[in-house]
């Protein structure tokens, strides 16, 4: 008889980096690492993906920056961040005490800018891996142009890979004709892993004022509304591209996270849900652990892509 007391293995490995469990945070929703420490023992997480950093400080977009939609959240923050040098000076040292993987997210307006930021972050042993935000839809001359083009995406990956030995995770946009094509292209360029998906482009209109709600007019949709789109994208890429996937998009509970894992994600990120339930990451971790125990599954890795080969 199987013992319910037996602790299942939750550890996963992505691009040579060991994660104590598959729960990470989605970039942009968890600040620069420590904001949630009042609610969550951060060392219990598999990893923390930081808010995107640019070479120069970035003021962000004019407000309003968010709008709640049916089961979703439309945002257009505009990559507000202190710039990579200020981050390294004022934020990074404080992350030393957290016993988890710190994944820095990079955004930029040109391939060289990504490389410059990656070079700076690559010097720190506190940074476990780099995530390239080539798909943020909120910066006019920035991210999006890379994320929608297979060749431009590959160019960014190559320039970053040429400057650092850190594992490179590429965050893919769903706002493309074929996400598989982009995934293939960045894989060929040397990407070590994929994060997917970023937000879906959208907008909302204030009918009383006859104008767009968001200060930046258009934004990116996150939250449960986009989960089926995200699960479908993970499913497709898992079948076609041989890179580990960090799955995200509307995860609110363990069951949502397990959907992504069974579609092919080796790790999962909680994003928008943190705003609603600040302990969501830990609740999802506990829920997954319970699911494994209740179903007699000894290793989370046994569930990765499991839905492709149903029992």
């Amino acid at each position, binding site marked *: 008889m199987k013992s319910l007391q037996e602790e299942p293995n939750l550890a996963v490995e992505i691009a040579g980096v060991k994660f104590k469990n598959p729960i990470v945070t989605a970039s942009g929703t968890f*600040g620069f690492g420590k904001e949630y420490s009042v609610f969550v023992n951060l060392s219990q997480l598999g990893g923390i993906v930081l808010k995107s950093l640019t070479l120069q400080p970035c003021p962000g977009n004019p*407000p309003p*920056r968010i*709008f709640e939609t049916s089961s979703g959240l439309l*945002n257009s923050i505009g990559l507000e961040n202190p710039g990579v040098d200020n981050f390294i000076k004022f934020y990074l040292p404080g992350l030393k005490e957290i016993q988890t993987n710190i994944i820095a997210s990079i955004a930029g307006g040109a391939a060289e800018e990504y490389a410059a930021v990656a070079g700076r972050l690559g010097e720190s042993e506190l940074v476990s891996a780099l995530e390239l935000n080539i798909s943020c839809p909120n910066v006019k001359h920035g991210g999006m142009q890379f994320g929608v083009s297979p060749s431009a995406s590959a160019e960014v990956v190559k320039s970053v890979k040429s400057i650092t030995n850190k594992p490179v995770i590429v965050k893919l946009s769903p706002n493309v004709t074929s996400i598989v094509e982009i995934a293939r292209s960045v894989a060929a360029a040397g990407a070590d892993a994929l994060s997917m998906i970023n937000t879906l482009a959208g907008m909302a209109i204030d009918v009383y004022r006859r104008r767009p709600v968001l200060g930046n007019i258009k934004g990116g949709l996150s939250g*449960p509304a986009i989960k089926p789109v995200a699960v479908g994208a993970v499913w497709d890429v898992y079948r076609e591209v041989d890179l580990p996937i960090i799955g995200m998009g509307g995860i*609110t509970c363990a069951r949502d996270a397990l959907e992504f894992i069974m579609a092919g994600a080796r790790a999962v990120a909680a994003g928008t849900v943190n705003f609603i*339930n600040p302990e969501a990451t830990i609740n999802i971790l506990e829920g997954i652990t319970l699911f494994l125990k209740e179903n007699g599954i000894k290793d989370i890795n046994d569930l990765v892509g499991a839905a492709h080969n149903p029992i």
Partner: protein
Amino acid sequence: MIHNPKARIVSQKMIFPGCCLLTISSPDISRTAKPGQFIQVRILPLLDSTLRRPFSIHRVDREEGELSLLYRVVGRGTALLSMEKENNFLDIIGPLGNGFTIPEGKKKLAIAAGGIGIAPLFFLLQELAQSRNKDFSIYTLLGARTSEELILADEITSLTDSFSGGVKVATDDGTVGHSGPVTELLEEVLANRLAEMVYFCGPRDFLRVSAAMLEKYGAAGQLSIEERMACGIGACYSCVCRTNRKKGEQPVYKRVCLDGPVFYSNEVAF
């Protein structure tokens, strides 16, 4: 900051149509809260995609361990919250943000509220009254659209009757008090040099006009502002307001949840 996932609703009353007073039992938050701070309330936990809503703390009863919110029903979140009944439980986080401060040496104070803007200012009056510092003079200026929506005037009058100053009211339709916007009362107080420090809260236009008036008369002031908010703890950078005024300059934004919701009036760019 405390996350209280099971705070009991002590009472919920309709003050006038579309305006509610909600009292919640939360000893930890009510004992540490300062005037101007706010809490984040989770709206119907079953709707797991609905963001928390920020509400400034309207008043506290530290002995009973209770705090109250005074709010208008303006959208989906407040509509759902207004249906919550006594003895239901709410998931709340607080106290959040920074509060009002009284600069050293400022004794002549004014409080100006546009409509529901009285919500956080009442808590400040409560604290001032408890301080029993008779050196203060306090003018409280209350604006409303009509007499039915004018609230708390009597309670504030008795709360502040030991101070010099007084309570003045204005309604848009003239059904009670001064006929016209409350900013006209503010201008009168400022022109007569009756206030050197003004605390104000209300609709955006009221804030803009009041801030300009303070600048005109050289008075200092603090205001509490609202913005669409997500995390409430400074992580998401959603709820910003611009703090530099010159056009053409690269904007400088501050987070309402963490750097505010109380700002000095000359900090905010309208």
